[in-house]
């Protein structure tokens, strides 16, 4: 009799208890980062047209500003202008990206991720690394658009160029996420800061007009702008040359932006609750 009762009890308890957590192992930092990046990329792949959003302004400059450039003797103005526009697109796209996080903060999915076992670091690094993908897609679109208009394509050099640009995208993306985390649900704050910073950065990098004739103080300010070195490296590479010092300066500037951005971003994400 007592045996029967024993069995019944056991059966009941096994029915009533939920199944154990299905995951036997805790994913590590790399797996976490990969998972965050894949999650971020899904909307990009599901809706590839979305990468055009950040390209509106660069394309306007390409269409309406490039034709106004004076003719230069060594090659077309387009050859000089396109690398700058690609860098501009990378800056726009990566600096917009925090807005997605702002939306996630407002709607609540950020909070859900904070309570998940994903580490804080992976939530930032995974997001920032993902910026490479839209940057590649956008660069490809721009090159495809300008090539029929007399742009001289040096594919190998262009590929090296986007490698240099990748660090810049990651860094700016991380800074944009940091700005979103600090702004929290105040979307206006995010956009005000983003818009205020973006044009000085572009002008001080010589993206639209060369800095050759600039007054001393402006050149000094431009020398402090990492984007200037990135743009110079891109211009050299897109022209089909590989001047080691220019490219190295560009790569270092890009790496510095990446390191600085990730450091600031990680700080902001670790403080995020």
């Amino acid at each position, binding site marked *: 009799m007592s045996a029967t009762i*024993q069995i019944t*009890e*056991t059966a009941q*308890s096994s*029915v*009533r*208890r*939920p*199944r*154990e*957590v*299905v*995951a*036997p*192992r*805790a*994913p590590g930092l790399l*797996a*976490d980062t990969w*998972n965050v990046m*894949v*999650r971020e990329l*899904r*909307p990009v792949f*599901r809706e590839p047209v979305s990468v055009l959003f950040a390209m509106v302004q660069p394309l306007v400059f390409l269409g309406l500003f490039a034709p106004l450039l004076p003719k230069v003797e060594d090659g077309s103005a387009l050859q000089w202008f396109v690398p700058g526009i690609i860098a501009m697109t990378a800056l726009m796209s990566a600096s917009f990206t925090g807005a*997605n996080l702002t*939306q*996630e903060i*407002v*709607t*609540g*999915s950020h*909070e*859900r*991720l*904070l*309570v*998940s*076992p*994903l*580490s804080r670091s992976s939530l930032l690094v995974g997001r920032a690394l993902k910026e490479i993908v839209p940057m590649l897609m956008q660069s490809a679109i721009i090159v495809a658009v300008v090539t029929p208009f007399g742009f001289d394509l040096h594919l190998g050099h262009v590929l090296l160029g986007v490698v240099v640009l990748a660090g810049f995208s990651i860094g700016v993306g991380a800074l944009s996420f940091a700005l979103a985390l600090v702004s*929290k*649900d105040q979307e206006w704050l995010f956009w005000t800061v983003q818009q205020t910073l973006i044009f000085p950065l572009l002008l001080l990098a010589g993206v639209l007009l060369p800095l050759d004739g600039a007054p001393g103080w402006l050149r000094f300010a431009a020398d402090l702008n990492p984007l200037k070195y990135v743009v110079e490296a891109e211009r050299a590479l897109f022209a089909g040359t590989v001047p080691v010092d220019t490219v190295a300066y560009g790569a270092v500037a890009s790496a510095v932006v990446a390191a600085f951005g990730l450091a600031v971003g990680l700080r902001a994400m670790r*403080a995020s*609750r």
Partner: protein
Amino acid sequence: MTTQHTTGPVIRTEGLTRHFTRHKQTVEAVRGLDLEVGRGELVAFLGPNGAGKSTTLRMLTTLLEPTSGTAEVAGYDVVRERRQVRRSIGYVGQGNGAGHAQRGRDELVSQGRAFGLSRSAAYARAEELLDAFDLTEHARRPVSTLSGGQRRRLDIAIGLVHTPQLLFLDEPSTGLDPQNRANLQEQVRRLHDEQGTTIVLTTHYLEEADAIADRVVVIDHGRVIADDTAAALKAGLGDLVTLGFENETHAITAAWQAEVLLGSRAEIERVGNVVRVRSARGAETAPGLVTELAWQGVPVTRLDVASATLDDVFLELTGRSLRESNEHTSDDTSDDSSEHISENSEGEAA
């Protein structure tokens, strides 16, 4: 083969306290909370907006660090063992767990992967949950295009991907229409009954706490002011029997008769030709009372028996109606203590 579902509490807090600083003022959102929740319980934290329910939940789910006191969730300390706590619990917040730019199935898969499921296991689990929550046909749509009810179901499905033994739901039915609210309550109930999941939810809806929770923890001004089953809380207050009479004279006589019959066991009050009697087991004593009064020549012309509501309980405990408290706090922004401050003052607290 001893029964494992009775091994210690799933949640244990000791002196759990959280202060917020805003405009140089300290707000004590949660004050010295001592609480135990056992395995398999379904508990509702009930209280007006700003009572400290959500702040408590945010501390238990590692979103907020306590100012003082300790809390253990699923056997892990919420400050020192955050990652283990996060792996052990399911959490459905007030907002949408699913990202609006994402698609439903993708979010379920992402969540599964975050908990370490293999790709195929994550997809299989996503299908299972989409089916269980009647979302299969919406799985490919961006979350932003789903209706409020569909989104909420998706949020709960996401919270359940790793089949947690302990599930937190923060105001799960806020913003849902009555139909969807009823569906949600049924789903929560079923999850508890069929899987034995321990569930802790916050609500400022009395009806909700009443309808689904086995145990109601009433929280006000950051303190637990009552903790019992809804039935016991209400039984303590008794039923309200309202008797109508032809005229005031009859009512006066009846009130006096009722006093004689029920004595100190009842609170009796007369207004015009209506007599109100509040007593334990009022529903059972009412028929006898009506017959007796008829014998005494004061026939009852109208009878109404109402069991106590949780609102009556809240009124009895605090001197305020819960409904009024909700309206009051939502209007008065200077007093919406915990929930909103938690967003703003985190920078200072961190």
